[in-house]
């Protein structure tokens, strides 16, 4: 078990999210930076979909009541086990009675904690993920509070520390043209402008500000299914990139979609940060996905767990 001593601004239980439920109005949810959670689980030999914690900003601390191997990935927080620093991208042993504390982040936006055996919460529609927008899943559908207790799965016998290189973040977000891209009055504005991430962004959407994007003519659209990565254009002309907790249907024009391989970059962008969209084609999007797969396969081999969890 672990006890939340200090909960941080928004700490939630997340796995890789729900599938097959969008037609019920349920969002995917799950870790905004999938690759970071995957990496943390791989470092511990957990199955990829094991639930961990997503931290966003602030100071938090957790006390463990059993010996546990942990791995922290994603944003670079100042992390310590009692007073000893913990490195991001490494697995470390925490002893029963010790406290893991996080402060930050120094860079990035969200950190992920995996624990050997995983965080145990009742599954909702097949997933442990917290859907903050509708208050479902995770721990009572909400962010953690001080005093919460979380059950851990069975211990795994691990030995020495190991670490992995994490991909460096940059602000170049690759996108595929969306169905309404050709209807933009000036398509160049999308890719030649710098977009600033707004503080009102959350797990539902990354709200961006820049020069107004306009359509050649007003467009009435029927509501349709939408998914994380879709770049919607509301009448304000300021685009919104849908993220994991987004509504399942929408009626705004979709001018582009962020490629799957780069969605994590939005999860790790901070309010005020400048982002740029780079238009790519489908072949490049698929190649970028392939590079992630190869990265995790190499990592699996290096850690001796093969591709069993791929």
């Amino acid at each position, binding site marked *: 078990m672990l006890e939340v001593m200090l909960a941080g601004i928004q700490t939630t239980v997340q796995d890789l999210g729900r599938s097959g439920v969008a037609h019920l109005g349920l969002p995917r949810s799950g870790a905004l930076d999938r690759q970071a959670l995957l990496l943390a689980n791989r470092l511990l030999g957990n199955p990829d979909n094991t639930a961990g914690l997503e931290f966003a900003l602030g100071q938090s601390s957790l006390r463990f009541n059993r010996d546990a191997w942990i791995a922290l990935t994603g944003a670079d927080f100042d992390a310590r086990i009692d007073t000893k620093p913990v490195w991001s991208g490494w697995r470390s042993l925490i002893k029963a009675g010790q406290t893991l504390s996080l402060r930050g982040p120094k860079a990035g936006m969200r950190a992920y904690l995996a624990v050997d055996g995983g965080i145990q919460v009742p599954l909702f529609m097949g997933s442990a993920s917290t859907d903050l927008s509708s208050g479902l899943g995770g721990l009572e559908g909400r962010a953690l509070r001080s005093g919460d207790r979380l059950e851990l799965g069975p211990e795994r016998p691990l030995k020495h520390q190991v670490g992995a290189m994490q991909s460096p973040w940059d602000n170049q977000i690759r996108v595929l043209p969306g169905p309404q891209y050709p209807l933009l009055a000036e398509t160049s504005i999308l890719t030649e402008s710098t977009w600033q991430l707004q503080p009102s962004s959350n797990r539902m959407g990354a709200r961006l500000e820049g020069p107004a994007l306009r359509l050649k003519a007003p467009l009435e659209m029927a509501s349709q299914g939408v998914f994380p990565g879709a770049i919607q254009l509301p009448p304000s002309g300021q685009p919104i990139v849908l993220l994991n907790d987004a509504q399942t249907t929408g009626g705004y024009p979709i001018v582009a979609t962020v490629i799957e391989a780069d969605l994590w970059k939005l999860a790790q962008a901070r309010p005020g940060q400048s982002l740029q969209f780079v238009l790519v084609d*489908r072949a490049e999007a698929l190649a970028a996905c392939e590079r992630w797969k190869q990265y995790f396969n190499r990592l699996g081999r290096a850690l001796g767990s093969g591709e069993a969890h791929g």
Partner: protein
Amino acid sequence: MQSLSPQISVLGEYQVFLGLPLSSDPEVCLQIQSRIWQLANKCRDRDGVLETVPGMNNLTLRLSDNQDPELWCRWLEAEFHRTASTDIHKGREHIIPVSYGGEAGPDLESLATRHGLNSRDIIRLHTQGNYRVLFIGFLPGFPYLSGLSNTLHTPRLATPRQAVPAGSVGIGGAQTGIYPCTAPGGWHLIGRTHTQLFDATANSPCLLSPGDRVIFVERGHYA
């Protein structure tokens, strides 16, 4: 109807979209929607399909990453032409008791004024409708209902509310719907129901499914 040709396109890496032009005739919309329901049922649980989301006269699929979206486009088009608009499935009927006006329906009076009616007229028109669930979206269990009287069609609020209470019955554009949980929203709120639209503990958590019929009846003061 059979000659209607859908627009079919690939969206992102692994989504496929099939959409029909929106008709101003509600009957035509419903006929097209019934073909969307049939198509959605054919797609759901098929290997390679992660999500099947019907929208307003359209359907979006999210495929797993071992699928070729172009092949699915061709398959969808062929399947669409194999569906018929004549057999609109009947669905189940739900009677939803609503307390209109007052705190439960804070926009009832302004809506009446806007349309040159009184609030009794609005309630009468709203309870006379035979509504169909076109699709579920936006929030868990939120039904998009067709069948709203033309007289009640109203553009959404200029500034959405931060929090619409669960159970609120609203009007947005040509549609009426029910908020299953407390959420931000831009529809005009005319009443509220105790009927639970989403039950996270149930096997089928959504009360309503596409194709179901809904009848609103007036009940007394909301308590």
